[in-house]
């Protein structure tokens, strides 16, 4: 099976090499090849109208990233390397005229219901135009009732909708080993369905990370313990870039 992965990796590397050769160095610099994902994972069919208004009026944009440990990003070693900050960097590069601020409101090991309880102080108080809500890991790990999970998501989405705040949901992290212990499938499907029913975009972090894992972009089995933080940082950076890319598409 190692052979299988190796082949896939070589094939992708070749494709990316050809693509880079054809499009010239400009693109290669803007988008490190290791963040590549299949095109269908970056499709977005909703518009972030409030973010678009602010950006086009060159007004400041405040984004709140609420979520769990992977929002705090402690695995990478420092807050600058967490995905919300990487998103801010990538967005600022894409919209140099706008003052973009991404506020990190990650708290580890919280159920979606507990995140919802933090909304008044951590979300609404920041007066954001866009909320990026990363949810479901703790619910899946703890096997929380799926109805509680979907109810909490629904209540949160309703609250943000009532306050005219744009919303993006972010699904779970992928990790090959954890999927054998934890039933993510149920929670993933529920999260995506809630997003669809509310016409809220769900950023497919799980599928992207799985793709990168299959492409051997990150494999914690093969790096020494002191290199792990760097690998985690690379993944967070890619997630930040991909999020920035989809937000850019959704405000055009």
């Amino acid at each position: 099976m190692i052979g299988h992965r190796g082949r896939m990796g070589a094939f992708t590397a070749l494709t990316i090499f050809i693509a880079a050769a054809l499009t010239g160095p400009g693109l290669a610099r803007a988008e490190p090849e290791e963040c590549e994902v299949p095109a269908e994972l970056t499709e977005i069919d909703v518009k972030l109208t409030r973010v678009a208004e602010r950006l086009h009026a060159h007004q400041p944009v405040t984004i709140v990233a609420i979520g769990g440990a992977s929002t705090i990003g402690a695995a990478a070693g420092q807050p600058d390397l967490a995905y919300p900050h990487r998103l801010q960097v990538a967005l600022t590069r894409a919209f140099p005229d706008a003052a973009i601020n991404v506020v990190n409101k990650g708290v580890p090991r919280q159920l979606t219901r507990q995140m919802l309880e933090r909304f008044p102080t951590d979300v609404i108080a920041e007066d954001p135009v866009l909320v990026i809500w990363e949810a479901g890991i703790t619910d899946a790990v703890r096997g929380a009732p799926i109805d509680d999970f979907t109810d909490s998501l629904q209540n949160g989405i309703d609250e943000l909708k009532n306050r005219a705040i744009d919303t993006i949901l972010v699904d779970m992290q992928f990790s090959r080993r954890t999927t054998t212990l934890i039933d993510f499938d149920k929670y993933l499907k529920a999260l995506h369905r809630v997003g669809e029913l509310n016409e809220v975009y769900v950023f497919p972090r799980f599928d992207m990370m799985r793709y990168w894992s299959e492409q051997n972009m990150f494999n914690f089995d093969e790096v020494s313990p002191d290199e792990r933080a760097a690998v985690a940082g690379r993944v967070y950076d890619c997630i930040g870039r991909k999020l920035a890319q989809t937000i850019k598409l959704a405000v055009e």
Partner: protein
Amino acid sequence: LPEQSPARDIRLDFFRGVSLILIFVDHIPENILSYFTLQAATFFDAAEVFIFISGFTAALVYSRRLQAKGAMYMTAQVWRRTWQLYVAHIFLFVIFIAEVSYTVMAFNNPMYNEEMRVADFLGEPHVAIVKALLLQFQPTFLDILPLYIVMLGIFPAILLGLRYQPALVLVPSALIYATVQVFGFSVPAYPEGHVWYFNPLAWQCLFVLGAALGYHSAQDRPLAAGLMRVVFPVAAVLFAIALVIKITWTIHGVWEAFPGLFLRALWPISKSNLALLRLVPFLAAVVLVTQLVPANARFLQWPITRPLLVCGAQSLEIFCLSILLSALGHFALSEYDSGIAMQLAVNAVGIAIMCLTAKMINWYKMMDRIPMLQPALAGSPPDDRAVP
């Protein structure tokens, strides 16, 4: 589950066998075959089939014991069976703990360190193990046996109630179910904040219904034909509507452009609390099957059906095995290769192991039932015995 009885309705074995295979398939996450199981086309799934038939067969078998040998003996037999289920559950739990310990020790992904800590019941094994013994610790996929154990534990009371005062069983059962639907009561589990995935307050209703019909059937009293003439068309219409709706949901899940009918209005449908939207189509299916599939249906005799009948007849062992096999299958898929060919291979191997094991157990039990000849008698020529 209980042993062979003279007038065995092999439809029960067949459908329970099918439900065991489907439980195995559905328990492997992201399995391509799960698009072809009950849950892809109906609001209910194999769990309803399993629990209902378990209630039905329990009433069928133990009501005969009750009649032949009295309430004490029946209770003792039911509780012996409950004990076997309990031991099987603990056995599966030990295997689960081994899998968790192994994975946690080898775990090296810093991106999940924080989140995995909540699964860290290994930090307090003294509590976790006691909670498991009390059926309060129910890891993923080890959640249906606790329900079954509790149901069988109270079954002697259910059966005696059905015999002497059916209303005393059926009315409270329906009331408790209705209360859960309205107020959403659940039963707490371990760790803190968890609940029983199969809410026994809701699911008891299906088990009791199965038992009531099984008891009725054991008395050889056929259901009133006049009643069936009314119920059958209603059931057919309900089942068909639910079928069409759920199939559009499944297609919609794969291909978003296809509309999921009433998705916005009906989703989500609670499995934990056995929502009416699951229960009603299931009962409709029961009516359709009992009317359309006679006990002597031709297909039940086909050689290809045989392994399913045998699996259904040895359901406890095969159920436990299926839980184990789906965990191993999932492990193989995520550790090595999750391509479609590998998925199909995992399904095929798993189902083959289940069928072969059932066949072996069946053979062993059959051999066990053949009485042994006394060595002294076996050694002496038959005509010696004939002459006094």
